[in-house]
């Protein structure tokens, strides 16, 4: 037995190596368009990765089943990033060329660390970086970052919206004076991303801002919550990532007796996968949504029927997760890809044919998600209507506040934005301008 193993093992290994590295046959059909899926399916961020990329893959399958994009079938390849910047760079290089030999058009890391790691490669490689509600905020300035988009709004709008929500609860901006807010965040670029806007608004409104950081992966928050108990803040904005950290935050708040109705979670902090483990402790917690969960939206309902009921090809191992926060966010991101692809085909006169990166970029920039368009796709109310332009690369800048009732999210507000969108825009432009001057980037003329 042993000697057989000894003999077979090297041969098997060699065969494995060969299959892994032999280039797949370049059977390049005319009507195919390749998309990369750099997913994060293991580790603390797996709930996020499986839901979001599951939604993306399901939407692409759904589009394919309905005849593709003007007849162009979508193909994709997956790569595991583990939500890690170094692995994301590796995946970026690996996915750059698809199995059919096509170059990728768009990259979506679902993670600020990964986005920062690849952001400088975009213009050179002619690839769009679609940061769907995460990532580098000042990339919303299209003159400095022509290849990067923030289609579902960025963190600065989000923190503005949260503060506005608090002000509404307190009875107006004038009542915010003297209030104390704790920004409890994971100690990474992602956790610090909202701070420039937050500090400025806190100063303008006369609030006291206390910044408390939690070292990654954020499972140990005891001392931070003790500090919060000492500080006695009026509100806590929680900026966490990964199911473990997020539910730990709520259970700690419960233990310290901090009211959950004063705890506002970030878009990537609160999903069903984060709320359920925290049990009763989660009840009352506010979460910001850039894509509203639910299976009643016509598109999601039809996807569920087509992919899970009529056939069993859906990407989610647990079909019950269809329609959750991360799933719908993934569908929202994929809808933008496909609408951009449609635009690109039309604008470059290649309807029914594959397009290249620069054409896709122009198509993405031309996105105009009017209420009628959203209605036609079947996601009215799931994402906010918005329009992009040459200079303006961020989406609606609007969010909805949700509250966890112990079983599901209740929508508390309609779409609402930051108190002063022009101020947020000014911050974006000055930050992008600083980057441009430091790195000798010639801003594009959008005239």
């Amino acid at each position, binding site marked *: 037995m042993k000697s057989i193993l000894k003999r077979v093992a090297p041969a098997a290994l060699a065969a494995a190596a060969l*299959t892994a590295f032999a280039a797949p046959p370049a059977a390049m059909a005319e009507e195919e368009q390749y998309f990369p899926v750099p997913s994060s399916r293991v580790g603390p961020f797996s709930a996020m990765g499986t839901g979001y990329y599951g939604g993306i893959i399901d939407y692409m399958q759904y589009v394919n089943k309905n005849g593709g994009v003007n007849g162009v079938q979508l193909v994709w390849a*997956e790569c595991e990033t583990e939500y890690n910047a*170094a*692995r994301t760079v590796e995946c970026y*290089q690996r996915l750059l060329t698809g199995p059919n030999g096509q170059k990728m058009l768009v990259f979506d890391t679902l993670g600020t*660390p990964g986005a920062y*790691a690849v952001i*400088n490669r975009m213009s050179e490689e002619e690839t769009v970086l679609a940061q769907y509600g995460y990532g580098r905020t000042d990339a919303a300035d299209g003159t400095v970052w022509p290849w990067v988009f923030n289609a579902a709004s960025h963190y600065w709008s989000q923190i503005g919206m949260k503060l506005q929500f608090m002000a509404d609860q307190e009875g107006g901006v004038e009542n915010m004076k003297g209030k104390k807010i704790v920004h409890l965040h994971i*100690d990474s670029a992602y956790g610090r991303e909202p701070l420039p806007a937050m500090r400025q608004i806190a100063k303008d409104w006369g609030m006291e801002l206390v910044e408390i950081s939690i070292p990654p992966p954020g499972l140990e928050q005891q001392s931070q919550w003790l500090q919060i108990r000492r500080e006695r803040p009026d509100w806590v904005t929680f900026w966490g990532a990964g199911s473990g950290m997020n539910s730990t935050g709520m259970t700690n708040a419960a233990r310290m007796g901090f009211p959950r109705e004063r705890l506002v979670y970030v878009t990537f902090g609160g999903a069903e996968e984060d709320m359920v483990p925290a049990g009763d402790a989660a009840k009352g917690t506010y979460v910001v949504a850039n894509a509203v969960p639910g299976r009643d939206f016509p598109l999601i309902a039809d996807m569920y029927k087509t992919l899970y009921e009529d056939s069993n090809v859906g990407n989610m191992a647990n079909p019950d997760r269809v329609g959750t926060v991360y799933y719908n966010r993934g569908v929202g991101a994929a809808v933008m890809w496909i609408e951009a692809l449609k635009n690109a085909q039309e604008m470059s006169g290649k309807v029914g044919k594959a397009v290249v990166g620069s054409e896709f970029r122009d198509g993405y920039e031309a996105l105009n998600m009017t209420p009628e368009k959203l209605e036609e796709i079947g996601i009215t109310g799931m994402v906010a209507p918005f329009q992009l332009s040459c200079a303006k690369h961020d989406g609606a800048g609007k969010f909805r506040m949700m509250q966890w009732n112990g079983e599901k999210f209740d929508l508390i507000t309609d779409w609402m934005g930051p108190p002063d969108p022009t101020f947020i825009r000014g911050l974006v432009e000055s930050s992008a301008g600083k980057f441009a001057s430091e790195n000798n980037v010639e801003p594009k003329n959008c005239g």
Partner: protein
Amino acid sequence: MLYRQAGRFRTSYSMDARLVPFFEDRIALAAVFLFALCVVPFSASDYWLSAILIPWLCLSLVALGQNILMGYAGQLSLGSAGFMAAGAFACYNFELRIPEMPFLVSLIMSGLVAAAVGIVFGLPSLRIRGLYLAVATLASQFFIVWVIDKFGWFKNYDSSGIITAQDIVILGKSFTTPAEMYVVVLLVVAVMTLLAMNMASGSVGRNWMAVRDMDVAAEAMGISLLRTKLQAFAISSFYCGVGGALFAFTFLQSLEPVAFDINLSFRILFMVIIGGLGTIIGAYLGAGFILLLPVFLNIFFHAVVGEAVDATIVSAFEQVIFGVLMIMFMIYEPLGIARLLEIGQERLRRWPFKV
């Protein structure tokens, strides 16, 4: 019987002091180096250069530094990623604040900065040893990353905390394509490997090994513990610093303190243990195993099972296989992959006879 050991006499001191005693080994090494320098940059794809070879070489250099400290001098340390961060941010700041400074000088300077930090954090080694020292060096890991995070000056007051690395410019030529950066990394790593081989086989290395094997006896024979231990810390940190700077400038192309977390320190530790403690080649083999095996497993599974199996299960399965392989290596070859290579070489020498 490709080549044999018997009947080869060293008749002079210079022959005895050779780094690579066998002619055939020298030919093989030179061939590998020439292949890596003259063939690889022109034939390998960008993916291979920028996502496989560059990070592998950079981390090999760091693992070499860790091996000097742990394998040769016997000082258990857990701060290598911290020293990498020190080197990377030093290089960024030299390039930023003294634009006239050539890149290679910045690289050496960043190594020196890391070495200085290493000496400071090596001081506890004079009093404590073994696992206790590992815990003490853990402080360097957290302290360095914390300092860089805390004081905006190191990051040029960038609000997000992730900064873009400058382009590499040497003698007026900028090295920006994967092939060009690969050549820079390869040459730096080759030169530093040669230096490490020299140190390891000379009096410096013998002092390290004497201290490793029994420090009291070494001191009794007249070896200064203070000098030897701090020297090992300095040189090891120098390697980590240069490796960290290369890692940030050529692979990540951005600098972020979180990239140099405790996780990376552990991975470097595993590279050295799996590759082979106290061997030069072990650093390369270990870095290859820890860094590249998960990538290859991922490629392999996506190529073989493709869409047939749920990708979540595939990803989890890869981690299981990786873990099992690590345990198997430790059980069947505790001396590391370098030892396997040695056994193979031995077999070649005696071929066609069996050992």
